């Protein structure tokens, strides 16, 4: 494995049974992502970007080929090891926020730390830090239904970032947001990427997101069509 790489994908193929036939969502993907990258998987619906994101997030496994994420071979992980990887190293941001509606903002952000069995005082400090990064300290006791869409997505980002993961996977994070909120969210993520050196991998076809990406991997029909890097990107 290359020293600076966080994700290494080699000859990866993913097929799903569809009736009596097999549908191939990803074909022979080869990719390497370095630490601290701000990268996007770009493509139309059905291009395989979410499938690839799921495999990288150890939510799914490849049919053939290999996917190494933070020195773990995804295809060889047991369910328990995959959960451990997600718990300790990965953060997820979803299109529809997926916050736990009956819990407060504080409790939603605290949840990943509870899974890590951290002490109460340490948890409180880390949650408050995360909420401060996202400008949500005045919403600590609010519940998701009381928040705007932009605020909900910021809470989701705080939840993904609170444990300071090595890799954050974001699936269409701005799909439910207006332009102003989208830019605000993307700027926040870019700042977190820069300051905390967290690697971000997006799955998107939103032009607003694409504009912020430092590296753009275009997928078409389950294959990498092209891989572009921003000239003035830090990476």
């Amino acid at each position, binding site marked *: 494995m290359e020293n600076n790489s966080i994700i290494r994908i080699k000859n990866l193929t993913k097929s799903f049974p569809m009736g009596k036939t097999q549908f191939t969502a990803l074909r022979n993907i080869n990719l390497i992502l370095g630490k601290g990258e701000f990268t996007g998987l770009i493509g139309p619906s059905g291009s395989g970007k979410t499938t690839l994101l799921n495999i990288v997030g150890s939510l*799914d496994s490849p049919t053939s080929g290999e996917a190494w994420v933070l020195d773990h071979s995804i295809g060889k992980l047991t369910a328990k090891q995959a*959960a*451990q*990887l997600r*718990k*300790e190293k990965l953060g997820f941001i979803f299109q529809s926020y997926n916050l*736990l509606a009956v819990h407060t903002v504080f409790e939603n952000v605290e*949840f*990943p730390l509870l899974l890590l069995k951290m002490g109460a005082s340490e948890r409180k400090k880390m949650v408050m830090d995360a909420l401060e990064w996202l400008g949500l300290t005045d919403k600590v006791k609010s519940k998701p239904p009381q928040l705007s869409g932009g605020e909900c997505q910021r809470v989701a980002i705080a939840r993904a970032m609170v444990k300071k993961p090595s890799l954050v996977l974001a699936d269409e994070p701005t799909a439910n947001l207006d332009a102003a909120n989208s830019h605000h969210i993307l700027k926040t993520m870019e700042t977190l990427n820069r300051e905390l050196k967290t690697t971000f991998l997006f799955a998107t076809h939103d032009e607003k997101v694409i504009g912020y990406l430092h590296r753009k991997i275009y997928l078409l029909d389950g294959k990498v069509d092209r891989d572009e890097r921003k000239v003035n990107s830090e990476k």
Partner: protein
Amino acid sequence: MIKFLIKGLLRDKSRSRVPIIVVAVGVMLTVFMNAYITGFMGDTIEMNARFSHGHLKVMTRAYAENMSQIPNDLALMNVEELLDELNEKMPRVLWAPRIQFGGLVDAPDELGETRSQGPAMGMGIDLLSGKTNEAERLNMEKSLVRGRMIQNPGESLLSEEFSQKLNVNPGDEVTLIGSTMNGAMTMYNFKVVGTVSFGTEAMDRGTIIADIEDAREALDMYDAAGELFGFLEEGFYDDEKAILLAEQFNMNYEGDSDDYTPVMKALSQQGSMGQYVTMADVWTIYISTIFVLAMALVLWNAGLLGGLRRYGEFGVRLAMGEEKSHVYRTLIYESVFIGIAGTVVGTAVGLGFAALVQKYGIDISGMMEGASMMFPTSIRTRITPTDYYIGFIPGLLSTVIGTMLAGIGIYKRKTSQLFKELEV
């Protein structure tokens, strides 16, 4: 983590309050229905007990052997002494002497000549001494069709059908022609003060009812009675208890070979009543089981839906790194909590309703008017020890099994699939 899950459970009405209410309602219905079915089956037995068998019956050994012939020549003697002994030894059983007799009822015209007559089945019941509540036990006031209840010696009631057949009305006199317990012929005049209808063909065809002291006088049965009826204080028949009491009583006379020795029989030991009690028990179990299973399916389904509804939430929790086994376990713990809470509430409410209906009953005499079968005119539940735990079958077991089945999806589906369901 536990605190986090409890907070979620308590705050989310659809996860806690609603399922608890659903389980409680299901359990309440189960408990009430079980008590109702037990009560209904028991009421039919009770009718037979009140009119002809008692929960317990004391007779002479010879009378018991020929019970169907009602042989009053083999009746119990020194009944007051025997009653005192029974009241002392079995204070929780209510005893009442009765005399059944056959005879001819003759209705005279204004000249004293026979106008009409017919064979009658007579019942001598303790109505005037005030020592028993036989009138209430036989529901006589509500069975009265015309006239009034017996209030004085020498008065009698006729079944309505019989009175019409003889063309006898309240206020008329009739003569009972029969035989005494010693075999001599007897003729005894009664004043008919009312007519009754018990809603059963056997009782309504040709019955004459008199106070037991009049029956004794008519049949030369001083301080005698064909049968002593015993009724358990709880008000309903308990076969095990009745048989035990009968065995205890009979043990005192085990070595006695005299035909006039008293013998006690429980209701199920009399004629075909044993078969009926067994049949009622079996039917109670069948009906209760069907209802419990039906309710179990409903609550199983509720548990299943409750689990399926939360696949999205499980997807998030799994994505955050929670293990599948942990998600599954917490789901089961929640369902156990909901099952126990719902069952306790449902059982308490169900028992409350059942206790009210057991005490006061629901009067359905209006629906029973003209019925030719011997059915109870009041619906009463009967609370048994089973009612205290039967609700746990649908309430706890089915809820948990339903949830367990729903939770299997957590294992069967790929995490990414749960993740997709979350996005829907």
